[in-house]
C-alpha cells in the first residue's frame, strides 16, 4: 500500500458518513436517469422504474461493497457489535454483575498466583545473560553417603537422576571440571559467617567465600572499586573483602572513601577493595533469602585443592554460546570417566551434574507454586462454566430475538459475532475487576506467605502479569461465549417463532448445560480432594510429637572465634560462666548449652560397638547438665549427665530409644558401651526419649549425648545456648546479650529465636499451601453449588407445564420432588465420577507436598465426595421443593 493510498484511506475513515451519503446519491441519480432513458424509449413509467432498478442490481449490497473497499467496514462492524453488546448488557445489570464478579474471582486468583509464579520462577535472574548460567553439583548413588565428607548446604534442589543423591562439590574436582570446553567460566562459593568487630556493636555476618572469577561468571561489575583478581585468591595475599551495598550504607555510612577502609572480620583486618551494586544478590541469597554482607577470596589450602573426598562448595558456571545443557553434561561425563579411572577411591561414584541456575534455585518452591497455578486454572475453568451456563439461560430467553434477526436476513456469522462480542465484553469487565482483585490478593498473599520463598518480595503487577490476565480473559471470553453463541446462531427461525419461547430446542440446551454442570462438579471435586489431601497432611504434621518441648525456650548461637578462645577448655569456661550468670536472671528456669540445639542443625559422627564391629553413624551432641531439663526431653532409665561427668572422669553418654532400636536389636542400651574416637570406651548411663531433631517432618534418628565438660571426647565446638523461661522467651534477649557482653565485649550473639517460633515457621509453608488450596476449593464449591442450582431451577421452570399436568392428574408432591432430585442425582453422580478420575490423575502432582500420605488416600476422597454431594444435594433441593409447589392452573394457563 503506497503512502498516498494510506492517506486516502485515513481521510475516508473520517468522512465515512458523508461518503456513504454521496454514494447513495450517486446511485439514486443513476437509477433515475436510467428510468428516464427507458421511458423515453417507450416503456411505461412504472415499468421503467422497475426495470432500471433491476438493471442496477441490489443497491444496498453494492453500497456496502463500495464502502468495504476502503477497509474500515470490518472494524466498524466490530465496534457496532460491541456497542450493541454493551447496550444489551446494560439492560440486564443483575446478570452482568454476577457474570463479571464470577469471572473477577477466577481471574483475580489466577492473576495473583501468576504474579507470584512470575516473580519467583519465571523472571530471569538478575545477572548478565542469565539463561546461560548453570548450577553445578555432584551426585552419588543413594545410600553411599557414609564415605562422603560434606559441609555446606547445597545451593538448590534441582531434580536429580533416579536413585541419586546430591552433594556439594569437591574443590579438587572443580579444577578438572573447569577444563571442559563447554563453559566460559566456572566459580565456586560457600557460605561463611564471620564476627564483625571494631566498628560499633559486634555483629555476626553472613558472607560468601568465593573464587576470584565469581563475579565475572555472574557478569556483575562492582559499583565501586574493583573485582577480585587471581592474586587475591591466595593464603599469602593481603587480606581483602568486597562488601554489599547494604553493608556499605549501614555499617560504613555510605562513606565515599570506602576504599580506604579496612574492616575487622573474625579478628582479621581486611582491606575493602570493592562495593557491589545496590540490590545485588548472589545465587545463594536468592535461594535462602538471608542477606550476604561480604565476599572474601576462598583461598583454598593446598590440602583442599587435593582432597577429592571432601565435598564442600557450590559451583556456578557459564555455558559457552551455542553449547547446550546436554552437550555440556556429556563433556562433564567424559571428564568424570577419566577421574574415576585415576582416583577410583574418591571419584568412582561421584558424578558432576548441571542444571539451569534459576530452576535450581527455585525448584523446591516450584512444585507448590505450580500446583497452586494448576488449582487456579481449575478455578477459572469453573468460573467459565458458570458464566457459560448463565449465558445459555440468557441466550434461550433471547431465542425469539435471534430468530427474528435471522428471519430478517442477519447472517448466522453476524449473530455469532454479536453473542461473542457480549462475552468478550463480560470477559473484559471480569478482567479489569480481576486485575484489581488480583492486585489486592497478591499483596495479601505476600503478607501471609511464610519466609523462605525466593524472590517473593520482588512480586509486582507488571506487564507480563497484565498480559497474562488479558490472555486468560480473552480465552475465557471465547471459551464460555462460544457455546451459547453457537446455539443461538443455530436456532431455526420458523420453528422458534411458531412455538412458545420455552419449549422445543430447550432439550438440546439442557443437555449442554447438564454436561457443563457435570464438568463443574468434577472440577470442584478435584480441588476439594487436593485441599483435603493437604489438610490431612497438615493435620498429620501438627499431630507429630517432637519429643521435646519447644515452647518458652529461647535459643541463640554464640560462635567463639578461634583467635580469642584457642582451646575447647576456654570455650567451655565461657559457657559455664554464662550459664551461671543467666541462671541468676529473673524469669529463667533452666539454662543449657550444646554444639547444636534441636532445629538448629545436627552433627553426624561414626562410632563402633566394639573393636571388631563396623562403623555406625549417629547424631552426636555435647550437652550441658541441664540440657534435657531445658528442652523437656524425658529421662526413661538411668541418669542424665551431671557436672561431675568432667574431664578425667570415665567417659559417659546418654542415648535415645532409637539407639537401642537401630543398633542393639531393640535391647536396652543402659549399661552398654561403645568405642568412640581413638577408641575411648564410652559407657551409656541413661536412656532418654526420642526427638525429631529436624522438626515435625524430620525422622527420628539415633542420638548420642556426651557431656560437654568432657571436652576431649569429641572435636565439636560448643556454639548454641538455650534458656527455658517462665514467661515470653523473647523478653530475655536483651538481658542475655548484656551478660554475654559483660563477659566479652566483642562477642556477638546471633540467630536468636524462640524455639516455638522456629517450629511454627517450619510448618508455615505447609499451613500456607493448605490454606490457599482450601480457599480455592471453597470458592470452587460455592461456584459449583450456584451452577447446580441454576441448571435445576432452569430445568424446573422449563417443565412447569409438564409438572402442572402431573400434579393436575394427581401426582404425589413427594414423587415430584423425588423425580427432580433424581435428575440432580444423576448430574452429581456423573460429575463425581469425572472428578474422581481427574483427581486421581491430577493430585499425583501434589505428592511431593504430602507428609506420610499417598495422593490416593481414600478417606480424603471419601470426605471430598461426601462434602460435595451434600452441598450439591442441598443446592438441588430448593428447585426440587419449588417443583412440587407448581400450581397446575397457573402452569397450564401459561402454556
Amino acid at each position, binding site marked *: 500500500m*503506497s503512502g*498516498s*493510498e494510506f492517506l*486516502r*484511506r485515513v481521510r*475516508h475513515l473520517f468522512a465515512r458518513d458523508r461518503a456513504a451519503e*454521496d*454514494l447513495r*446519491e*450517486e*446511485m439514486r*441519480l*443513476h437509477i433515475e*436517469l*436510467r428510468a428516464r*432513458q427507458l421511458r423515453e424509449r417507450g416503456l411505461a413509467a412504472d415499468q421503467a422504474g422497475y426495470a432500471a432498478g433491476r*438493471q*442496477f*442490481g*441490489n*443497491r444496498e*449490497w*453494492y*453500497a456496502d*461493497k*463500495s*464502502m*468495504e*473497499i*476502503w477497509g474500515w467496514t470490518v472494524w466498524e462492524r466490530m465496534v457496532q457489535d460491541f456497542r450493541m453488546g454493551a447496550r444489551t448488557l446494560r439492560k440486564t445489570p443483575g446478570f452482568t454483575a454476577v457474570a463479571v464478579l464470577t469471572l473477577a474471582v477466577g481471574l483475580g486468583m489466577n492473576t495473583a498466583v501468576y504474579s507470584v509464579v512470575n516473580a519467583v520462577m519465571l523472571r530471569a535472574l538478575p545477572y548478565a545473560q542469565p539463561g546461560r548460567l548453570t548450577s553445578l553439583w555432584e551426585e552419588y548413588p543413594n545410600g553411599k553417603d557414609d564415605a562422603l565428607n560434606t559441609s555446606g548446604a547445597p545451593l538448590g534442589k534441582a531434580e536429580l537422576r533416579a536413585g541419586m543423591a546430591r552433594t556439594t562439590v569437591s574443590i579438587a574436582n572443580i579444577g578438572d571440571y573447569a577444563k571442559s570446553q563447554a563453559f566460559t567460566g566456572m566459580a565456586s562459593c560457600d557460605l561463611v559467617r564471620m564476627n564483625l568487630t571494631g566498628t560499633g556493636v559486634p555483629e555476626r555476618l553472613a558472607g560468601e567465600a568465593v573464587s576470584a572469577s565469581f563475579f565475572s561468571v555472574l557478569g556483575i561489575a562492582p559499583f565501586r572499586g574493583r573485582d577480585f583478581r587471581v592474586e587475591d585468591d591466595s593464603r599469602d595475599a593481603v587480606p581483602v573483602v568486597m562488601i554489599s551495598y547494604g553493608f556499605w550504607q549501614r555499617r560504613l555510612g555510605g562513606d565515599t572513601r570506602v576504599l580506604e577502609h579496612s574492616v575487622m572480620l573474625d579478628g582479621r583486618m581486611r582491606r575493602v577493595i570493592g562495593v557491589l551494586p545496590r540490590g545485588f544478590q548472589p545465587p545463594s541469597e536468592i535461594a535462602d533469602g538471608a542477606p550476604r554482607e561480604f565476599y572474601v577470596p576462598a583461598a583454598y589450602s593446598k590440602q583442599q585443592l587435593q582432597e577429592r573426598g571432601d565435598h564442600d562448595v557450590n559451583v556456578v558456571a557459564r555455558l559457552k554460546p551455542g553449547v547446550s545443557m546436554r552437550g555440556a553434561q556429556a563433556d562433564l561425563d567424559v571428564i568424570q570417566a577419566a577421574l574415576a579411572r585415576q582416583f577410583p577411591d574418591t571419584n568412582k561414584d561421584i558424578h558432576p551434574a548441571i542444571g539451569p541456575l534459576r530452576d535450581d534455585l527455585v525448584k523446591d518452591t516450584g512444585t507448590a507454586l505450580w500446583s497452586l497455578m494448576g488449582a487456579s486454572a481449575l478455578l477459572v475453568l469453573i468460573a467459565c462454566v458458570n458464566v457459560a451456563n448463565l449465558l445459555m439461560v440468557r441466550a434461550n430467553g433471547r431465542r425469539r430475538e435471534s430468530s427474528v434477526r435471522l428471519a430478517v436476513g442477519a447472517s448466522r456469522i453476524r449473530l455469532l459475532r454479536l453473542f461473542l462480542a457480549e462475552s468478550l465484553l463480560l470477559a473484559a469487565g471480569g478482567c479489569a475487576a480481576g486485575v484489581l482483585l488480583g492486585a489486592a490478593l497478591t499483596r495479601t498473599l505476600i503478607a501471609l506467605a511464610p519466609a523462605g520463598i525466593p524472590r517473593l518480595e520482588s512480586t509486582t503487577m507488571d506487564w507480563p502479569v497484565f498480559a497474562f490476565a488479558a490472555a486468560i480473559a480473552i480465552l475465557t471470553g471465547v471459551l464460555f461465549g462460544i457455546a451459547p453463541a453457537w446455539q443461538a446462531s443455530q436456532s431455526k427461525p420458523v420453528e422458534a417463532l411458531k412455538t412458545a419461547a420455552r419449549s422445543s430446542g430447550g432439550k438440546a440446551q439442557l443437555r449442554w448445560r447438564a454436561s457443563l454442570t457435570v464438568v463443574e462438579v468434577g472440577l470442584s471435586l478435584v480441588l476439594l480432594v487436593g485441599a483435603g489431601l493437604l489438610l490431612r497432611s497438615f493435620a498429620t504434621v501438627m499431630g507429630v510429637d517432637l519429643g521435646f518441648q519447644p515452647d518458652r525456650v529461647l535459643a541463640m548461637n554464640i560462635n567463639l572465634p578461634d583467635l580469642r578462645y584457642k582451646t575447647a577448655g576456654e570455650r567451655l569456661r565461657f559457657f559455664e560462666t554464662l550459664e551461671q550468670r543467666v541462671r541468676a536472671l529473673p524469669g529463667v528456669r533452666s539454662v543449657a548449652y550444646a554444639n547444636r540445639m534441636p532445629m538448629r542443625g545436627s552433627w553426624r559422627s561414626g562410632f563402633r560397638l566394639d573393636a571388631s564391629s563396623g562403623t555406625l553413624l549417629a547424631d552426636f551432641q555435647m550437652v550441658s547438665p541441664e540440657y534435657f531439663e531445658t528442652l523437656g526431653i524425658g529421662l526413661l532409665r538411668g541418669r542424665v549427665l551431671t557436672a561431675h561427668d568432667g574431664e578425667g572422669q570415665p567417659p559417659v553418654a546418654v542415648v535415645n530409644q532409637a539407639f537401642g532400636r537401630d543398633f542393639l536389636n531393640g535391647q536396652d542400651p543402659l549399661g552398654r558401651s561403645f568405642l568412640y574416637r581413638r577408641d575411648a570406651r564410652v559407657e551409656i548411663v541413661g536412656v532418654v526419649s526420642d526427638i525429631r531433631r529436624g522438626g515435625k517432618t524430620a525422622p527420628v534418628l539415633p542420638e548420642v549425648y556426651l557431656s560437654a565438660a568432657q571436652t576431649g571426647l569429641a572435636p565439636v565446638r560448643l556454639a548454641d545456648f538455650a534458656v527455658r523461661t517462665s514467661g515470653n522467651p523473647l523478653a530475655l534477649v536483651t538481658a542475655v546479650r548484656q551478660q554475654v557482653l559483660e563477659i566479652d565485649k566483642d562477642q556477638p550473639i546471633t540467630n536468636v529465636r524462640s524455639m516455638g517460633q522456629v517450629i511454627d515457621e517450619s510448618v508455615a509453608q505447609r499451613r500456607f499451601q493448605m490454606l490457599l488450596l482450601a480457599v480455592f476449593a471453597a470458592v470452587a464449591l460455592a461456584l459449583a453449588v450456584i451452577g447446580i442450582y441454576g441448571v435445576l431451577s432452569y430445568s424446573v421452570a422449563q417443565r412447569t407445564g409438564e409438572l402442572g399436568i402431573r400434579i393436575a392428574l394427581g401426582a404425589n408432591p413427594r414423587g415430584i420432588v423425588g423425580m427432580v432430585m433424581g435428575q440432580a442425582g444423576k448430574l452429581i453422580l456423573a460429575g463425581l465420577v469425572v472428578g474422581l478420575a481427574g483427581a486421581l490423575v491430577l493430585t499425583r502432582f501434589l505428592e511431593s507436598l504430602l507428609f506420610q500420605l499417598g495422593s490416593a488416600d481414600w478417606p480424603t476422597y471419601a470426605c471430598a465426595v461426601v462434602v460435595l454431594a451434600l452441598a450439591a444435594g442441598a443446592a438441588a433441593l430448593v428447585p426440587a421443593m419449588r417443583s412440587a409447589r407448581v400450581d397446575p392452573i397457573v402452569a397450564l394457563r401459561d402454556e
Partner: protein
Amino acid sequence: MTGSQRDEIPSGTLDLLILKTLARHGEMHGFEIADSIQAATEDVLQVEEGSLYPALQRMLLKGWLQGEWGKTGENRRARYYTLTAEGRKQLRQEIERYGRVSQAIARILEPA
C-alpha cells in the same frame, strides 16, 4: 434487448473499460460511464450496473481516478470522474496486458 445474445463481462476487464471510457470522453458521472460502455459494446456485455460503483471506489482508492462533485445539465448534483496521471499509466498497462493475454488466447484458438 430481449433475444439479443448477452455475455457476462470477463473478470478484470471492468477496470479497463472504465479507464478507457474516461480516457476517451474526459469527465463523466457514473450513469454516463455505464451508458457509454453499454452503447459502445452494443449491449453485448451484460453487467449489473451497480457493480460499477465498487469498481469506481476501488479506483478512487488506488488514485487512478479523481471524483469531483458538479452539476448536470439539469442542475442535478453528480460526481464527475476524471483520469489522473496514474490512471493513464494504469490504462496503458492494462491495455498492454490485455493485448498479451488475448494474443496468447488467439494463438491457441488459431487453426494449426
